[in-house]
């Protein structure tokens, strides 16, 4: 296990008070938090300072950390003999031995405390497992139909003897149809394992749906642009349009203006519970850029034959 100097990370002395530690952390959080920082390595820096603070703000964890002794940052080390009996999880099966080789310092201290703030911890107190978060990028089609995604994780969890080890886990998650970008999903019980009968943590997924060349989602409703020729917009037309479920014929009413939304009922995204959105085709009037002599003459005739003035309101 590699040593990390949490005091140096926060820039405080080893005998710093709780208040000094909190002040130092707050200052660094304001500097490096990814939501507010402009530093290039902000995320990595914030991870380091929050890991250090998570241990040093908790009296029990800080005492356990101090007992590890002083080492150079990055130096391979072993906790002193008996450390695990004083601070680690007690092997429940008896005869278990501790291995510190395949876990890191953060794993070790994450297992020492619950999510509750403050208060002393009994050795047999149930500790809930950690929640995990993951970003999931899926295609529009996967979001429309629902899909399955797999996660390969390497997590620190206690074995049958209560010994903390890093183990591989593979989780396959069914994502229901109708999800949209920015939504959060919860996968119950697929986070870190609870200790002493504590509940298992959850896995939280942040959904990011890839942009589709035709459709954009707003809640369960979908929008797409519908290019129309000027004569289709004026005279009305029946046009064939794509929808995620296949092509359909859409009736364009005569006198359709650009920006008018034509609704295809129930053709949006649908949830497993049966609720569904609509697909809106937003009219765009597209004019031909190349016209031959005959067409030019026809447009000229139209101009001469109509009293229509699109700028009448500007006079």
């Amino acid at each position, binding site marked *: 296990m590699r040593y990390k100097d949490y005091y140096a990370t926060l820039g405080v002395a080893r005998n710093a008070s709780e208040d000094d530690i*909190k002040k130092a*952390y*707050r200052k660094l*959080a*304001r500097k490096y*938090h990814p*939501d507010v920082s402009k530093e290039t390595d902000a995320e990595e820096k*914030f991870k380091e300072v*929050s890991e250090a*603070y998570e241990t040093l*703000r908790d009296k029990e964890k800080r005492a356990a950390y101090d007992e590890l002794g002083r080492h150079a940052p990055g130096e391979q080390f072993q906790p002193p003999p008996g450390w695990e009996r004083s601070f680690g999880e007690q092997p429940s099966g008896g005869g278990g031995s501790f291995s510190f080789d395949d876990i890191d310092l953060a794993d070790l201290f994450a297992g020492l405390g619950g*999510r509750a703030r403050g208060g002393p911890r009994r050795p047999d107190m149930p500790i809930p497992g950690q*929640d995990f978060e993951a970003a999931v990028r899926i295609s529009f089609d996967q979001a429309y139909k629902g899909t399955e995604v*797999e996660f*390969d994780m390497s997590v620190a969890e206690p074995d049958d003897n209560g010994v903390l080890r890093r183990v*591989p*886990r*593979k*989780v*396959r*998650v*069914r*994502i*229901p149809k*109708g*999800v949209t970008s920015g*939504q*959060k*999903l*919860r*996968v*119950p*019980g*697929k986070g870190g394992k609870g200790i002493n009968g504590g*509940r298992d943590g*959850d896995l*939280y*997924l942040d959904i990011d749906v890839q942009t589709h060349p035709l459709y*954009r989602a*707003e809640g369960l409703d979908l*929008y797409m642009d519908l290019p129309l020729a000027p004569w289709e917009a004026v005279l009305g037309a029946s046009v064939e349009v794509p929808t995620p479920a296949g092509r359909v014929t859409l009736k364009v009413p005569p006198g359709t203006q650009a920006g008018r939304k034509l609704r295809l009922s129930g053709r949006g995204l649908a*949830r497993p*519970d049966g*609720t569904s959105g609509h697909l809106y085709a*937003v009219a765009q009037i597209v004019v031909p850029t190349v016209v031959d002599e005959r067409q030019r003459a026809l447009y000229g005739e139209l101009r001469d034959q109509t009293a229509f003035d699109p700028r009448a309101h500007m006079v």
Partner: protein
Amino acid sequence: MVKIESSTAVVLDDSGTITVAELVEQSGLSEDELAVLVDCGALEPREREGASWRFSAHCVVTARTARRLRDDFALDDTHALAILLRLMQRIENLELELRRRRWER
């Protein structure tokens, strides 16, 4: 060989509801902290019958954001946290509106 664990994800949106106890468990906030967030309007219970409040499942997202902000910035004042949360919600809504207007252009 690693055994595959299968599960179905639950969408945290307005279609489902959860109890206060479930919100405490899933957000990591205490019931007192949740009460302050409700008082300040950062969280809106869907049903308010006596002590048995029920929240939309989407409140898990809001409450977890509050917990993350509380922990990330070591905030002690839940009222200030509620204000921060409401401002963040306004930013999110404005960003959403901006994205929508960009599509329409």
